């Protein structure tokens, strides 16, 4: 039963990720006074791409062709670890939160290699920038997550979220800092404004798009899907760690249904925040990103220190 729920929620993750992307696009369009595409447009795009014949450069090696599958699988694996609608998942035990960060690193490693594989300047540029930003973002993210794991004294995400649930609504300064840090990291890691702009192919500012410039057809579909999944993963992390209320603690149909509704509601609200932020801010210069990320790191560190100094049991 546990395993069944785990598989079900992974499938839900994979299925709902494009919907979230569509919803964000919708909100952004409304805010910018444009006519929004259908909520299901990302699904149509993915289906269209899978039916197209992929074009692969003659310079490309096997790595370029296999990388989308590896990236997608690693991201799906990360999704199995994160509780979406219910806690107490067996998959959270087989891979804890540090392994989840490892899965992201795995996907990124291959994405960056794929960018270098074709031997164009754009690919190298994208890989170099992506690795720079992620290597600054990863410690900040771990700092924020360590705050949670030290509070709950477990690195198992299911247990940690249960712990937060059982504690009830307690305002912890450390969680406020960690929330801010994780939000900043999530924006950087998923390539949103102000770090990267997902909707532009303007050459000199590209990061994520520069790496996947050579991809087409089903390969592009997989990579797009994986990045939508990653966005949703970060959203769910923020929603379920800091506002876990509503998530199912028992495996009956009603609780699971509430869990699904709760997470969809939470993600919808988060997406509106993201859309507002993306409308209000402009993309920043590449070398300002380090300041942005060091700020995130500092917040994470402050969170951890305030946990140690103010909240720890002794």
């Amino acid at each position, binding site marked *: 039963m546990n395993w069944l729920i785990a598989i079900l929620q992974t499938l839900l993750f994979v299925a709902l990720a494009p919907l979230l992307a569509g919803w964000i696009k919708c909100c952004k369009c409304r805010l910018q006074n444009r006519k929004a595409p259908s909520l299901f447009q990302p699904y149509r795009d993915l289906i269209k791409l899978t039916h197209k014949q992929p074009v692969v450069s003659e310079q490309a*090696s096997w790595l370029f062709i296999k990388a989308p599958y590896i990236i997608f699988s690693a991201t799906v694996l990360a999704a199995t670890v994160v509780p979406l609608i219910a806690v107490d998942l067996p998959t959270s035990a087989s891979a804890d939160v540090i392994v989840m960060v490892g899965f992201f690193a795995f996907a990124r490693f291959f994405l960056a290699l794929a960018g270098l594989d074709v031997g164009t300047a754009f690919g190298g540029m994208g890989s170099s920038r992506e690795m720079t930003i992620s290597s600054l973002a990863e410690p900040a993210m771990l700092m924020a997550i360590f705050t949670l794991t030290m509070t709950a004294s477990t690195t198992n995400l299911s247990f940690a979220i249960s712990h937060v649930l059982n504690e009830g609504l307690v305002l912890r300064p450390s969680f406020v800092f960690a929330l801010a840090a994780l939000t900043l990291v999530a924006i950087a890691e998923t390539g949103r404004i102000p770090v990267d702009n997902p909707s532009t192919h303007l050459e000199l500012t590209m990061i994520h798009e520069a790496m996947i410039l050579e991809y087409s057809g089903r390969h592009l579909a*997989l990579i797009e899907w994986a990045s939508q999944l990653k966005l949703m993963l970060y959203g769910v992390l923020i929603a379920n760690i800091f506002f876990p209320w509503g998530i199912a603690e028992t495996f009956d149909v009603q609780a699971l249904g509430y869990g699904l509704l709760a997470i969809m509601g939470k993600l919808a609200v988060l997406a509106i925040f993201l859309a507002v932020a993306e409308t209000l801010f402009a993309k920043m210069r590449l070398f300002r990103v380090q300041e942005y990320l060091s700020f995130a790191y500092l917040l994470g560190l402050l969170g951890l220190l305030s946990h140690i100094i103010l909240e720890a049991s002794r």
Partner: protein
Amino acid sequence: MILALAYGAVLLSFFSGLLALLMNQRLHVLEFSQHWFKKSPHGNDCSQSAIANSLEEKHFPFLLRQAVFVLLGLSGVFAILAGLGVLIGKEVITDQLSLGLPWVPWHVRFDCLSGFFFLIVGIATSAVSLYGPGYVNSYDESQHPFAVLGLFTGLFVAGMLLVLLADDAFFFMIAWELMSVASYFLVAFQHENSANRRAAFLYLLMAEVGALAIILGFGVLASFSDGFTFGALREAHLSSTWASIAFMLALLGFGMKAGIVPVHVWLPEAHPVAPSHISALMSGVMLKVALYGLIRFCFDLLGDVHWQWGVVLLVLGTVSALGGILYAMMQTNLKRLLAYSSVENIGIIFMVLGLSMIFMANGHPQLAALGFLAALFHAFNHALFKNLLFLGAGMIHHQTHQLNIDMMGGLIKKMPKTSMLFLIGCMSISSLPLFNGFVSEWLAFQTALQVDVLNNGVLRSLIPVAAAALALTAALAAACFVKVFGLIFLGQPRSHHCEKAHEVQDKGMLAGPALLAGLCFLFGIFPGPVISLINSVAGQLLGETLPNDAALGWLWLAPVSTSQSSYAPPLVLIGALIAGCISFWYLRRNPATALRISETWDCGFGGLRPRMQYSSSAFTMPFRRIFAKVWIIDEQIDKDMQGAMNQDVAAVHYHLQIQDHSWPRLYHPIEHGINKLAKVVGRIQTGNIRVYLGYSFVTLIIMLWVIS
């Protein structure tokens, strides 16, 4: 029996060295064999001719090389067996050898700690001996005689094994010096380059200074005990000041060999100039032997560790890890890069060892055992993947005659097998899940997260910061090895040599790295066996092992308790395979959408050339800007002008030099100081014999006065 295996390993490596000496004595061997055949009437013509044939000009060096490496490989296998034997049996075997000076026999002790490092040496030596015969073929016998290489390789391995066996300070230092001096000759092997001679001298200098520090450390211990055997040193009761002095001396000595910042400078000089299989041994194994020395000295001989030592190790380790990887990233010479990355990994090991000491001194032996486990497991993993990467670098150098990664590219198509092996090495060292590097890093994070049990507020805030530095190091390592793999194997070839390169032909040269790559993957999926082996080391040395979660079994890794953290790599592997297969199968069903091969998109301008690709310095440019203070950067852009009024740019020359801060900050002042001191001392050398006689006279008078 186990001890006999251990001795066998030492003797075999020693004999392999001696056998290599025969290379110069081909004619004598021929004479001797003919003489022997005349004497023995049973030798029939057939075997005689076979042997005579084998001694011919062409076959003799080939066969001898094979024989030397077979002996070395056997030594490795014996070392593995001996190590496994003692680890499984959890024994402590002692012995005395009446070698050396008549009144000080060599004491031998073979326990779990030695056994574990025997295992590391054994695996590395076996892989190297598979790889060696193919690799040394490329050396010209007249310029680089195999006799030298083989002799010192054998002595080097024997020295390392003897260090692990030693149970008294004399024997330890003799073995230590054997290891250092033999490796000096190996670094100086290609001595026709002045840079190589300089590197070798620097190495020898630092090795000897380090050895002096170790001797002084033993001396401090010995002055509080009645003898030089480790048994006597263990009994010594030191005040905490003297214990700290001994610890600092040992840290300096062993840290110099292990390559901890700021005494790491010999590593990036010596590793690139030694032959690749030797750099693999030096970086993969010798650094671990230094680590063994430190662990033996601190945890075993000194006994009660202080938490302040742990803090010293933690801070030094953090600096080394971050510094090592940042310097590694800037290198363009592949082997230099790998050498700096060794500094990083040793830094990580020191960090976790420091955590272990802190927990130990604060009365949490179980957590100390966890840190100890993470440190030793990372040492083991580093030996595997760094060996693999150095051997891979040797293969690349063998085929392309290049070590500059800016001159490579596109090798994934020319050398598919090598590229696969190298990719596994890169993924392990970047600590990606499913590979062994990740497991030890995961354990390190788990250790750091146990900080809540400590009472000291400073430590409780220091350790999470160190954990964040570890996270940064891991992320930077991933970036660094994306650069390495991407520039060497992917893209278009950047030089003629790389375009012409082809796969390594020699099977042994592929088998050695393949063995290591297989182990990297195997221990990434099933870390259990190694962890239980290290647990017995911790049990013997710290008197405490991890709580054994029998309920979870071999599938799971749950070092503290299941409710705190767990990791099941086999399940993750199964999940990855399922996810990968489903997506692959689902999307590949339709044959109408098969791949179409086409030209690379070039923005419509045409003429995409290899020079347009990102280079090493371009790839690391963002890092160079962000962490600018870490290096001394000398960046010059010169433009050749031409045309009317000299306004057209004909060519642009870009020159980038990255220097280590430790040279101007630490070594040059020392050098100046010594020179100044020498000048001051030089004043008493007047060159006049009467003055010298006066000195002798005064000395004599003073001596007489002292005695009376």
